[in-house]
């Protein structure tokens, strides 16, 4: 498998990938906008760049993307999935306000998984707007959002999913869970399903609340402090995204960053 590391701004225009590869977009990449086409291949993309606007086109491919939010206040992403299997993961541990708009369209028999884990701390607002569209039969969208909020912060997930008339047997699953660490913090889940077709499966589940007393008690009864217990619980939620990254040093630095954030 080819390994491509982008560490300058050469990605700025358009990049087309048509053979299996591992693409690492480094954190020093500061370009405003990029477009990547992934066609007839398998790819893994780790994006740590400060890019504000991204346009991804997938056709007959299988791709996992891990985007690590890095020093930016806004992000705009468009995913165009044509008969592909895509997993798009967003890990957001940044100490800044953020408004992230993600639009996705899936056609032919494509399926898209979107996983977002966001930590809001030190009075920051994290706002995610996710719009997905199932445009043809047997397409799938699976959206999983997880948030941790503390220090008078806000994490908000507006997830709206559209299923077009004729998109028979389309599947949409939305799930948002937000954990609040203190009374001053706020979580919001606004799920919307817009469905024009009868023959579909669509559901959403959401929860907002503090960590279950019983769970904290169980861990504490084994000697973990309340803080260690809540960290372990939250870490678990973020770790499953972080563990998708092959590179151990990136993984470790993220886990350390996370531990700093929640403690």
């Amino acid at each position, binding site marked *: 498998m080819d390994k491509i590391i982008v560490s300058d701004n050469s990605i700025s225009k358009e990049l087309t990938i048509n053979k299996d590869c591992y693409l690492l977009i480094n954190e020093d990449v500061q370009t405003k906008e990029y477009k990547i086409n992934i066609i007839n291949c398998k790819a893994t993309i780790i994006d740590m760049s400060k890019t504000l606007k991204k346009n991804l086109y997938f056709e007959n491919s299988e791709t996992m993307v891990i985007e690590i939010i890095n020093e930016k206040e806004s992000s705009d992403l468009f995913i165009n999935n044509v008969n592909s299997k895509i997993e798009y993961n967003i890990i957001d541990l940044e100490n800044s306000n953020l408004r992230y708009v993600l639009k996705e369209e899936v056609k032919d028999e494509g399926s898209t998984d979107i996983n977002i884990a966001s930590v809001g701390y030190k009075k920051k607002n994290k706002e995610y707007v996710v719009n997905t569209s199932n445009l043809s039969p047997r397409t799938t969208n699976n959206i999983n959002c997880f948030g941790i909020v503390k220090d008078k912060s806000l994490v908000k997930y507006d997830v709206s999913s559209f299923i077009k008339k004729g998109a028979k047997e389309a599947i949409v699953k939305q799930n948002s869970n937000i954990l609040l660490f203190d009374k001053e913090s706020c979580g919001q889940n606004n799920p919307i399903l817009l469905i024009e077709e009868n023959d579909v499966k669509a559901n959403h589940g959401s929860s907002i609340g503090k960590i279950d007393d019983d769970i904290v*008690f169980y*861990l504490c*009864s*084994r*000697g973990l402090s309340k803080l260690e217990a809540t960290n372990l619980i939250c870490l*678990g939620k973020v770790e499953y995204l972080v563990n998708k990254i092959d590179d151990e040093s990136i993984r470790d630095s993220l886990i350390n960053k996370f531990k700093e954030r929640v403690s």
Partner: protein
Amino acid sequence: MSKLVIKDLYVNVDDISIINGLNLEINDGEVHALIGPNGHGKSTLLFTIMGHPRYNVVKGSIYFNGQDVLKMTVDERSKAGMFLAMQNPLEINGVSTIDFLKSALNARRDTPISLYKFVKEFESCSKDVGFNLDMSTRNLNEGFSGGEKKRNEILQMKLLNPLLSLIDEIDSGLDVDGLEMVAKVINSMMDGSFSCLIISHYSKLYKLIKPTHVHIIINGKIVTSGDYSLIEKVDNEGYKWLEKEFNVSINKQENKRVSIGTCNVKESVNNG
């Protein structure tokens, strides 16, 4: 020499009184059996000793080795040598069994345990309690069978090596071999400095462990204590005889709870 002393304890849950003036003393080397009908406060007592925030101590005291337990946080109680094996161990999403056990061991050490030593200890304890090593990377208790959860509780007890174990219906869900394993583990721990308070509805476990003291709790109060023969009596006759002898009513539970009709809104999220 470890010692638990509970004096005149009153405990409320959601403003309903569950424990009503309970006294208990457990010394090093003793095995206490706590028996009593369903819903009379056995688990409540153990949760209270361990410090679950929902159980509100309104009166009385609990001391462990001279320390005021009620002033201690849950983890401090654990580090002081207390352990609770729960009747219904919780499933914890996102926390792997092995990571959790390592954190729990490290929490009571000044320097983190070496990976080699931990793995060795973990493997030997797992073997002793019949805990399948393949399960160690799975989330804590998630999808474990009833018996596997109980074995996991005993595994934790063995690893953490407490001075006082509070063991709540460990035998429910365990198979026959599991029961014998539990008895073996507890009996072997008795060799060191150890004492325990064991709740069970069945005499089978008690036959294997042979409690030194037996207490019967009715309506949140120990109405009588004795030796092993008390278990045999209850095994043969049930609890009815206590009503006459001690002038208590076993079914007055219903009258006690006046405030039904409250809707239990679960504000907290379990695990997503």
